């Protein structure tokens, strides 16, 4: 269940792949929505750690390419807002924590390494020739 919060923290780490290795691109994904408890403090403290553009893009991607899922409101402002109102935090909560990618692949935009997701668990292991 790769959630978008996790996706936002994972970069390709194959040997020598150090630029343009984030965000990983989703392909052939199956999504599930699961309610999570709303914790505004957690969101506020975690926000500075997010790569905002990557998050906005993957939220868009999730809602556009897989329209057969009812995703709720995935629209986030293009810039991280200064004022955090309840509505914004609820959207952020939904995007970060309630969208679960159960199956699919994450592909490195640079070296094209495929990281498969199966049963909600991403396999980020590297092959022998890819480790440092």
């Amino acid at each position, binding site marked *: 269940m790769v959630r978008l919060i996790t996706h936002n923290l*994972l970069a390709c*780490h194959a040997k020598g792949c150090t630029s343009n290795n984030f965000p990983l691109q989703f392909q052939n994904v199956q999504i599930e929505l699961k309610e999570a408890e709303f914790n505004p403090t*957690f969101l506020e*403290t*975690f926000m500075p750690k997010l790569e905002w553009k990557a998050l906005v893009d993957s939220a868009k991607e999730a809602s556009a390419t897989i329209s057969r899922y009812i995703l709720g409101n995935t629209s986030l402002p293009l810039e991280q807002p200064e004022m955090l109102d309840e509505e914004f935090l609820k959207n952020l909560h939904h995007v970060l924590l309630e969208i679960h990618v159960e199956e699919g692949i994450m592909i490195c935009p640079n070296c094209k390494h495929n990281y498969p997701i199966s049963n909600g668990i991403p396999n*980020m292991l590297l092959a*022998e020739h890819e*480790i*440092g």
Partner: protein
Amino acid sequence: MSKYLVVFAQAHQEFRIPELESVSQLYDFKVSLPDERDLYRPYMVIGLESEDHARLLAKRCILIKSIYEFYGQGKNYEELHLCNRAKRKLWERYIPETSFKFIVTAYNHTIPQSRQKKVVESFSYMDFMGKIDMKNPEITLGCFEEYETRSGKTRERHEGDGDFRQVYFGRLIEEGSARSLIQVFDVKKRSYYGNTSMEAEISLLMANQTLASPGKLIYDPFMGTGSMAYPVAYFGAQVMGSDIDGRQMRGKATPGVFRAASQYGVSSRMIDICTFDVTNNPWRCGELFDAIVTDPPYGVRAGAKRLGRKKELDADRLTLYHEHRINPRPDDQPYIPPTRPYELSNLAVDLVLLARYLLKPGGRLVFFLPTVTDQYEEVDIYTMLCDGMEVIANSLQDFGTWGRRLVTIRKVTSRKYLPPNFCAQEEVGEIHIPAHRDFREKYFQGFKKVETEP
């Protein structure tokens, strides 16, 4: 500050004070500990600023049985009563009409009924007018006699009665409620566990060392079957986990870690579990986590592994390998990369460096380190430290010839560090070889000293 009497559970003595200090830090209040403290004694008089703090301790500390407002102590009852009379101000408001109950009990001893009654009667000068209510009293007064350990000797029933080391007296503030969590997290009742799952009590103690609470993000890099994650999530934190071997986390059908998490009602806080080798990890940046809690595999039942080969491939086989990578076999089986053993003392050094990179300033690394009892020296712990990381607790769980130490390390720096390169074993000029080096080999040799040729 007022004084409170803590009655500890008879378990994990070395973990008691670290737990008290962690919980008080979590709720941001002060605890003053006695100057002379004997870790192995079950009663301790501590100073707190308010009764509420005592209640918080009793609700969160796994090793606290109960907390009393402290009225007195002594080598004998004369001393105790003298002390108690002097504290009259603390209890005189209960004299007129408060219903009460008296308990008289002992550590390492059973007091005969007849003397229990006499003890209660010796407090008659307190002149409580309220009725005695054994079921729902408004207050409970407790009197505790502490005897020396006399285990291993046969003795008559009640032998040595009254020959105690110290006696304590006070009013019950709160019965400890966190101990019941040991039953809740009992591994035997868990829907998913493995042969190296951590016992419930210890995993709860570890959770308290992490200062787990709502809003925090906590990571376990050797997640296994997730034993440390459940209590941490239960206390409100969000959890991330990873393991080099996905089978441990996964089990069959629905991933086991998620099944167990739902059993405890914490699956929404189990953010994600990922398969990767922590020495080749995909974390995009540092300073992500409030705490890292883990029980690294140290080789007795499951050895630590990292990606790589024990022996490098020769040229021919390397060519073959590259061909296979380009044209994978059509059997649709996932590729499983080769692994090599990860020596414990190297792992420990790497773990501290990784924690310094991944923890937020002030964050904590909490983990177990197995040690050989005869060979352990305190300096062993310090050989794995690096700048900016400080040991704040080190508690032994003793198994005889070996033991494991729960080590809590705090990140005391706000400097930003690069990710570690995980090459500890390649570094030369090491001055001190810690006793946990090659722990697995030592374990299977029964910790015998290596005989040197004459």
